């Protein structure tokens, strides 16, 4: 399975701009746009330039989808192209914006993204929206690979998109002691998560010896079935092992981990414990880096944002540092976190972690084409 194209849009710009900023250690944080309620207790976001407005998630998605299909050279007249969209918050920000007015102004079929994708990619087949929280596009990658391998589609356009909702910002503001200043993945003094906006799209195709950006080996899936919001190392471990088994790979084959790394009290210890149990105990000694200190938590797009960065690591041989990380947390002892400066890419596979609300885990393994 190959990744024929990848398009990303973050607060830092497109994929190349985002990767350049990551290598330089820059972040795209900005004060929350005007218009959000007072007393939200969230002051910053990692926001796409310009006003968001109604249907922002659909617009960002449509732009990425159109460009990814063009870059992949897929002609929907000859290819059965299906589409899976991963999202955490759907178009709920648009519903919220009209909540004081006419709710019927948001038709039900615009809560999901079939209209947006069909307009951007004429001829596309089924478009299915998967709302799997912060690992949605990781789940979409797994289901896309299943579709192609089973022969149910010739190629799959996998997308992620999310705009910020007031309700999710409120929940983030509600649970922090002090408003979070910035996202600090794997930092001893991390103070919680902030949201990032944007979208991403990739096209996955069968391996027919064509040029590609990377090889999609496998995505492992699991659900903690443990707690509504707190992650469980046991569930994460199952997803990591599922990915390795499906890829036919050993832990020692993993050279780099693009971590989930949300900068929250609970994610980082759980993710570190799982990485130690599966990879380090399995003989691996990977580099570990995270992007959320630079682009925020992009929710349903997070896994594809990590994937775009992973493909650029494979193309350039450089691994960006973990923006926002100063002093690693104790649980990261033994993990080679990339800090302050870019590091050379070790040989081997790249592992992409994505964990979501409700304990839904997706772990993806990619390699050089």
């Amino acid at each position: 399975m190959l990744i024929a194209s990848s398009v990303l849009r973050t607060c830092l710009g497109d994929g190349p701009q985002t990767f350049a900023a990551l290598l330089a250690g820059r972040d795209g944080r900005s004060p929350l746009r005007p218009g959000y309620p007072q007393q939200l207790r969230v002051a910053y976001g990692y926001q796409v330039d310009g006003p968001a407005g109604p249907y922002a998630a659909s617009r960002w998605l449509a732009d990425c989808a159109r460009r990814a299909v063009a870059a992949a050279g897929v002609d929907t007249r000859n290819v059965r192209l299906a589409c899976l969209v991963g999202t955490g918050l759907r178009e709920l920000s648009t519903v919220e914006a009209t909540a004081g007015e006419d709710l019927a102004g948001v038709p039900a079929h615009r809560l999901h993204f079939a209209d947006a994708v069909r307009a951007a990619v004429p001829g596309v087949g089924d478009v299915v929206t998967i709302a799997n929280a912060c690992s949605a596009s990781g789940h979409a990658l797994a289901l896309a690979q299943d579709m192609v391998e089973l022969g149910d589609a010739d190629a799959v356009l996998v997308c992620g998109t999310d705009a910020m909702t007031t309700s999710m910002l409120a929940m983030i503001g509600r649970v922090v002691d002090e408003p979070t200043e910035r996202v600090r993945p794997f930092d001893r003094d991390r103070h919680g998560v902030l949201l990032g906006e944007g979208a991403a799209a990739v096209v996955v195709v069968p391996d027919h010896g064509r040029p590609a950006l990377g090889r999609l080996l496998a995505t492992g899936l699991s659900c903690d079935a443990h707690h509504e919001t707190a992650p469980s190392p046991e569930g994460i471990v199952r997803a990591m092992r599922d990915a390795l088994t499906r890829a036919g790979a050993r832990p020692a084959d993993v050279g780099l981990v693009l971590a989930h790394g949300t900068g929250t009290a609970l994610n980082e210890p759980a993710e570190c414990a799982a990485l130690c149990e599966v990879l380090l105990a399995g003989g691996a000694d990977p580099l570990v880096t995270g992007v959320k200190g630079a682009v925020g938590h992009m929710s349903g797009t997070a896994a594809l944002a990590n994937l775009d960065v992973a493909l650029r690591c494979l193309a350039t041989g450089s691994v960006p540092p973990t923006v926002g990380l100063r002093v690693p947390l104790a649980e990261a002892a033994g993990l080679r976190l990339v800090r302050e400066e870019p590091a050379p890419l070790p040989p081997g596979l790249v592992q992409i972690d994505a964990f979501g609300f409700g304990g839904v885990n997706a772990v993806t393994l990619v390699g050089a084409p």
Partner: protein
Amino acid sequence: MTVVLVHGPGSGAPARVVGWAVHLPDADPRPADVPSVLAGLIGSACPPEQAGSVLGRKGLLYKEPATRLALLAVHAALAASPPPGAATPTYDPVAPPARAPGPVQPDTAVVACGNFGNVETVVTVARAVRAGGVREVSPLAAPNASSNVLASTIALWFGLAGPNVMVCSGALAGLDGLDIAVRLLRTGRAGRVVLAGAEPGDEVARALHAGPGDRPLRAGGACVVLERAVAPTPVPGPADLVLGADGFDPGVIWGDTYGAQGVVSLALASGAVAAGRAGRVEVSCGDEHDGYRTARVWAS
């Protein structure tokens, strides 16, 4: 015993239906024009606010009506279906095992379908924050800000730790979910899949639904439990019962459960086939915006 098979609209192989349940509160079980093959398949169903009478009260605080309806449907379907390799159901509806700490079932996946489950909470929270700031909001409502709360709550409640997928593709969600469920079985990601659908009937959901007048939104849930088909089986000839816009439309008779409608009809079809009242059923869901999809359920 009749083996019930199902073939999704876009998945290239059938799966076996081993359990099913429909949960439509306040539905007339015997409306005048319902086909006799469906008689008795709609039973009495408690409303979401009385879910505790079936599920036990603990853990239901702050659970959305749609989440409760899904839990009720899954509860009934699991209580009627033995897990792989067992002759009788091991899920005890009187003492549901997953409520107590215990081993999870990594081989059972959950695919949940629906669109409006959390919209009322999202709108209420947004309004409250605008009026008075985040202190007006209970952190216990936090999981409901995320659109996958329905799927993840099923996993947590019943200890189902396989892949967990929330499908929110409008009116097609139920049969889109069927395709995903069948693929999870075919790729070996799961040995059993709980496919559930649920929608609420609150004011916010009804305003967003705003469909044609003959299909008002109604609250309801349904579940089918799927396993791998033992051997490849071709889809049989013409259907003798059609559930959907081209035949008997449960969404018109009992009200539209929108993203759950595909699962509601799959469960009804499975019940009719298992009872020997229908041999080959065509099931469709969809609307004028999202289009239509069709699945087949038959006896083997």
